[in-house]
């Protein structure tokens, strides 16, 4: 199959680059080895401050609703972190605008939402919290399999039953200025969170749950749909296994499912993610990029790879493939002319600040725009 650009990796970076290239009239395919880091998405694009209107409009075309406000947002464990561009699901408190009194509402028996940690975090900031549990009839059948009382399963029920939660919350609400709910609303329809906000007479904050991330899954579906609508080919569950090169250029990629049918293209984008997504591999001796064998920026001494304090910045998260200023990959010190790199595989993400979504977005825009101009 011959295409303009083959994108390896179907996460946020791959999909963003794919949509942008399809919009520019380029034919593309995305190879996606299973689902991606959007399933762990906090909803925040860390470190995006420049030209956010471009990003907001771009996502709006796919039905993904973003907003840009500077301030802090509430993380699942009760920490408040600086935030700016994020999904509408995420509430951002402006400076001096933290809640004074909050009602935290969880579902009875749902263990993937940490109401006590949230309360503890907010109380440190001087916010009084009250925790209440509710039961919704429609959820009762989930209890037959208690181990599967998960965000996505609750969210499927909430797609239809969210108004009942609104009713329950309205009954519970006293003089609190803020209501905190688990992020299990709007799996199907990104309008649901704002509808809930309209119907509750207090500020409504959706706080993250354990994965999978409901807004993340919805975002992935919306982006994939948009990409396919623009004519892109999304190869779900396939995996790039080898690359053919011709001097300083990549000529084709072979995949697990399309053995004997290499994908040929003018340009290639590597957006395979970090260690979790297998964009990078490691053993006790070294870190490497498994598909092309690209140069990797990593510390030589393994003892320096990680900080024994788990919650501190972990140096290995900053490891990534080396590129030139146009994000073209380097191998043995030489530039590969038509291989661009985007997303978490570039390294330099700091988990305590966010999810790498900001890096994915900015690098995907950059490489797609470079390719579209060629």
């Amino acid at each position, binding site marked *: 199959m011959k295409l303009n650009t083959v994108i390896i990796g179907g996460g946020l970076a791959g999909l963003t680059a794919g949509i942008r290239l399809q919009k520019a009239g380029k034919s593309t395919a995305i190879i996606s080895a299973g689902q991606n880091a959007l399933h762990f998405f906090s909803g925040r694009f860390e470190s995006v401050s420049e030209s956010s209107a471009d990003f907001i409009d771009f996502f709006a075309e796919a039905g993904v609703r973003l907003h840009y406000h500077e301030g802090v947002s509430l993380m699942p464990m009760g920490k408040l972190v600086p935030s700016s561009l994020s999904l509408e699901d995420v509430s951002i408190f402006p400076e001096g605008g933290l809640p004074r009194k909050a009602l935290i509402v969880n579902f009875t028996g749902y263990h993937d939402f940490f109401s006590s940690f949230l309360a503890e975090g907010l109380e440190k900031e001087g916010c009084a919290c009250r925790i209440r549990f509710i039961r919704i009839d429609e959820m009762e059948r989930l209890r037959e399999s208690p181990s599967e009382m998960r965000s996505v399963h609750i969210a499927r029920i909430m797609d239809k039953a969210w108004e009942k939660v609104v009713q329950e919350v309205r009954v519970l609400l006293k003089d609190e200025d803020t209501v905190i709910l688990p992020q299990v609303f709007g799996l199907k329809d990104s309008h649901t969170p704002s509808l809930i906000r309209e119907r509750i007479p207090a500020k409504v904050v959706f706080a993250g749950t354990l*994965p999978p991330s409901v807004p993340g899954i919805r975002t992935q579906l919306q982006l994939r749909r948009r990409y396919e609508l623009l004519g892109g080919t999304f190869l779900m*569950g396939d995996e790039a296994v080898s690359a053919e090169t011709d001097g300083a250029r990549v000529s084709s990629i072979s995949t697990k499912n399309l053995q004997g049918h290499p994908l040929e293209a003018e340009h290639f984008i590597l957006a395979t993610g970090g260690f979790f997504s297998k964009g990078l591999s490691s053993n006790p001796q070294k870190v490497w990029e498994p598909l092309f064998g690209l140069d990797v920026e990593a510390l030589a001494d393994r003892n320096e790879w990680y900080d024994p304090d788990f919650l501190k910045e972990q140096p290995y998260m900053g490891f990534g493939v080396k590129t030139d200023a146009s994000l073209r990959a380097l191998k043995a010190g030489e530039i590969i002319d038509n291989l661009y790199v985007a997303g978490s595989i570039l390294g330099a993400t700091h988990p305590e600040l966010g999810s790498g979504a900001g890096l994915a977005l900015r690098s995907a825009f950059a490489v797609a725009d470079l390719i579209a101009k060629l």
Partner: protein
Amino acid sequence: MTLQEYTSSIHNFEECMKCTVCTAYCPVVQVNPLYPGPKQAGPDGERLRLKDPYFFNKALKYCLNCKRCEVACPSGVHVADLIQAARIRYDHSAPKLRDRLLASTDFMGSLARPFAPIVNAVTGLGVTKKVLDATMKIDSHRTFPKYSASSFERWLKRRRKEQAAFPEQVAYFHGCYVNYNYPQLGKDLVKVLNALGVGVQLLEKEKCCGIAMIVNGMSKEATKHAVHNVAVLGKAVEKGLKVVTTSSTCTLTMREEYPALLGVDNSAVKDSLLLATRYIFERLEAGAQLKFRPDFHLKVAYHTPCHMEKLGWGVFSEKLLKMIPGVEFTLLDSACCGISGTYGFKKENYEASQAIGAALFEQIRAVNPDVVACDCETCKWQIEMSTGYSVKNPISILAEALA
């Protein structure tokens, strides 16, 4: 040797990170709380079963083998294989008569075909459906596929000379459905391949691919079929022929399930066994041409069957359909239609089956196409029964569009 080299296992279960993405995409979990979900049924359960078979959970029978868990897994765990392999290994209960009959598609076909008009009339009767529902627990909402009075094999044998005259040749694994129920699809394939200058041959007596046996507790019978089919496919491949198919499920079964679940080595034939859509796409890409009717117009919505999703070849059907002048194409969201072969025919699964497909049916009604395209025969029955829209294999649409 490094530590990592010790951590791979059969079906990769040790690669599981417990991220639960598989369970998020399982269509059964959404409708049936009795099913523990692919993470628990697959890698989690496997750890326990390896310690003691006592931990085998009979609820694994609710898995419909759609393999969407495996497609979704970011860590390369063969979740669906783990579940089916566990059923084969640990579930020793004898299959019910009903399951045996549903699974024996070629046996039933060869019995029914000579009496096709009578069989079709009888199975279509309300009273028969009620009796089958009550006695066999085959849901009365279902309509049995009609049997054709004349088999595809017979039709093609009569054209052996004419087909042999084409300069290039392929063999065709038609499967039970084309042979006994819907020979027209086979005829459409012959028309399209002939238009490319390719003649079509039968294999030397193929058997049912065996998928219905694998999922109905008849893996021994399925293995016999697999051994037989690999041998007859091998004979065609030795002659230098490619073997084409028109069913995504038969293709997946023979390419992937034979080695992974039945332990039957298919390495000599695997690369030569292709869905016809892929074969045709590759011919066209290499410069062959098809002439299309100038007046053709059709609004097509393509549904990716689960086993096509696993195979990863839906792209070929999609590209071929888009290539036809006058086709207005919509790609439906990839989702299970709920039938999964014999699964939806069983009375105990009927409701779950319809609930699983509901989102897909809704989307089809919203798109309102002239025809739904799909490469799977059982999806066809399910979508036709549940939406009223007619469903055609992309090969048939291609054949209709030819000048």
